[in-house]
C-alpha cells in the first residue's frame, strides 16, 4: 500500500487529522468527516467548499513563500487533503513554560500574519494550537480550514482579534505583552496595518453588552 493511515493525531471540530504514509513519505491527512449534527444536504456542501478553498489557499501561500505544510495530494471524493507532516512544537504547549523567546515568537507570528494579509488571505483561526515551531526554528502556520481569500479590513481585524482571544483564554497573565509584540511584528509587514488595528478595536466592542460602546454612561 502506498497510502496508509496510521494514527489519529487530532480530532478537531472541523476535520480529523491523521498521521500516515504517502508513497513512503510521512504525511498528514486532513479528512473532513460528516457531522452527525448537520443536515446531510448542508453537510456535503460545506465539506466540499471548505476542502477546495483550503487547498487553493495553501497553494497560494506556498507560492508566496510563506511557511505552510506542503501539499501532496487532494481527494475530493473523500474530502481529504494530504500534506507534509510538520515536525516541531505546537506553540500552545510552548507557552506554558514562560521564556523571553516567546515575545520574539509573537513578533514573528505578527509578521507572518502580515504576510498572508498582504496576499489577500485571511486565516480565520489564528490560535496557538494552529502554529508549529519547526525544528529549524521556522514558524509554520497550520489549518487554513476557515481561511478566506479576502482583502476586507474586517476579516483581517478578526484574525488579530482571534489571536488575542486565544492568548487571553489560555494565558491571561501574559496575553497583553504577547499581543503587543504580535502587533509590532504585524505593523512592520502589513500594508494597511493601522486600519486593521483600528477595525479590530471596533470589532472587540461588537459583542453583547459592551459599556464602552455607549458614549453616555448609564446611571440610575
Amino acid at each position: 500500500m502506498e497510502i496508509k493511515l496510521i494514527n489519529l493525531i487530532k480530532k478537531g471540530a472541523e476535520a480529523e487529522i491523521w498521521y500516515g504514509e504517502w508513497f513512503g513519505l510521512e504525511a498528514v491527512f486532513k479528512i473532513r468527516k460528516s457531522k452527525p449534527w448537520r443536515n446531510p444536504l448542508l453537510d456535503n456542501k460545506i465539506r466540499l467548499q471548505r476542502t477546495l478553498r483550503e487547498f487553493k489557499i495553501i497553494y497560494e501561500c506556498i507560492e508566496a513563500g510563506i511557511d505552510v505544510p506542503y501539499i501532496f495530494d487532494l481527494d475530493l471524493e473523500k474530502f481529504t487533503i494530504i500534506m507534509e507532516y510538520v515536525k516541531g512544537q505546537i506553540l500552545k504547549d510552548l507557552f506554558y513554560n514562560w521564556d523571553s523567546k516567546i515575545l520574539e515568537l509573537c513578533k514573528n507570528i505578527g509578521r507572518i500574519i502580515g504576510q498572508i494579509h498582504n496576499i489577500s488571505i485571511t486565516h480565520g483561526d489564528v490560535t496557538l494550537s494552529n502554529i508549529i515551531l519547526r525544528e529549524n526554528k521556522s514558524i509554520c502556520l497550520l489549518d487554513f480550514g476557515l481561511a478566506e481569500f479576502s482583502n476586507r479590513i474586517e476579516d483581517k481585524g478578526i484574525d488579530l482579534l482571534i489571536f488575542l482571544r486565544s492568548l487571553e483564554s489560555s494565558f491571561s497573565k501574559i496575553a497583553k505583552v504577547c499581543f503587543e509584540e504580535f502587533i509590532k511584528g504585524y505593523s512592520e509587514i502589513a500594508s494597511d496595518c493601522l486600519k486593521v488595528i483600528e477595525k479590530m478595536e471596533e470589532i472587540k466592542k461588537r459583542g453583547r453588552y459592551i459599556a464602552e460602546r455607549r458614549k453616555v454612561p448609564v446611571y440610575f
Partner: protein
Amino acid sequence: MLILGIESTAHTFGVSVINDKFQFLANVNSVYIPPKAKGIHPREAAIHHSENAPKVIKEALNIAGVEFSDIDAIAISLGPGLGPCLRVGATIARILCLYYKKDMVPVNHAIAHIEIARYLCNVEDPLVVYVAGGHTLISTFIDGRYRIFGETQDIALGNAIDFFARKIGLGYPELVNVENLALKGERILELPFSVKGQDTAFSGLITAALKLVKQGYKIEDICLSLIEYAYSMLCETVERALAYTGKKSLILTGGTARSKILQEKLALVAKEQNASFHVVPKEYAGDNGAMIAYTGMLAYKHGVKIEVKDSYVKPFWRLDTVDIPWR
C-alpha cells in the same frame, strides 16, 4: 441564613427564597408576554413588573413560609438587561434593603444562568453554552472569571429567530413555532454561513431568510434552512471550543436551551468530542428568580455585597468583568 433573590432584567419578574443549604423555598415568576407578533417593549415590560412586583414578592414569601425579618440579604440582578426593567427590580430591592436593614448582593444575570445550570446538573467544570434572547456565548472558567470563548457579533440566536418569526407573523412562543414549521420542511435553501473563528453572526442570516420569504419560497423550507444554518453555526463553534479547551462536559443554559432540536444537535457535538452533555432543567432555563437567589447565596457566603448608594443598574454588565470568588 435566607436570601431573597429578585430577577427583573427583561420579560420576567421573579422572586425566590433560598436557604444556606441551597434549597429553594420558593420560586415565583411573572412573565410579560407581548402582543402577537410584537417584541418586548422595555417600557411595557417595566410597567408589567411594577404592577406585578408586590403580588409576586408576597406570594414567594407565603410559599416559603417566611417574613422579611427572617431574610438576611436581598440578591438583585443589576444587569445586563433592559434599562427600564432593571430599574424596577433595583428600586424595589433598594427600598427593601433600606427599610428592613438588609444587605444587598449584586448578581450578574448571565453568571446566574451559568451557576444555576452547574448546580442543578451537578457539573464541576463544564464548557458553557448560554443561548437566550439576549446572549449567545460560549464560556469557560479560567483564573477567577468566566471568560468568553466565542459569542455572537451582532444579535443573539434567540433574538434572531424570534425576530424572523414575528416578521412572518408567528406569535409567542416564536422559536417553537419556527421549529414546528421547520419539521415540515423538505429542502435546504442557500443562506450565508457566518462563522468567524469562535464567533458567529446571525443578522445577515435573518436578512437573507426574509429575502427568501419575499421571493416566495415555501415557508417550511425557509424555516428548516434557517434552523439548520443557525444551529449548525453555533454547533461548529461549540465543537471547536470543546476541542480547544479539552473540557469533558458541556452544559446548555438560557431560555433557548429549551429547544429540543438544539439539544439534540449539541448532544451529538458533545459525543463527537467525548464530553458529557447536560441541559439546565426546563423550568430554570428561562429567566427566573431562583438563579438570582442561588448565585446571590454563593456570593454572599463569600462576602460579596454592595451599598445601596452604589447599586446602579448596569444594562451593559459583561460577565467576563465579574470576579468569581466562590470558584
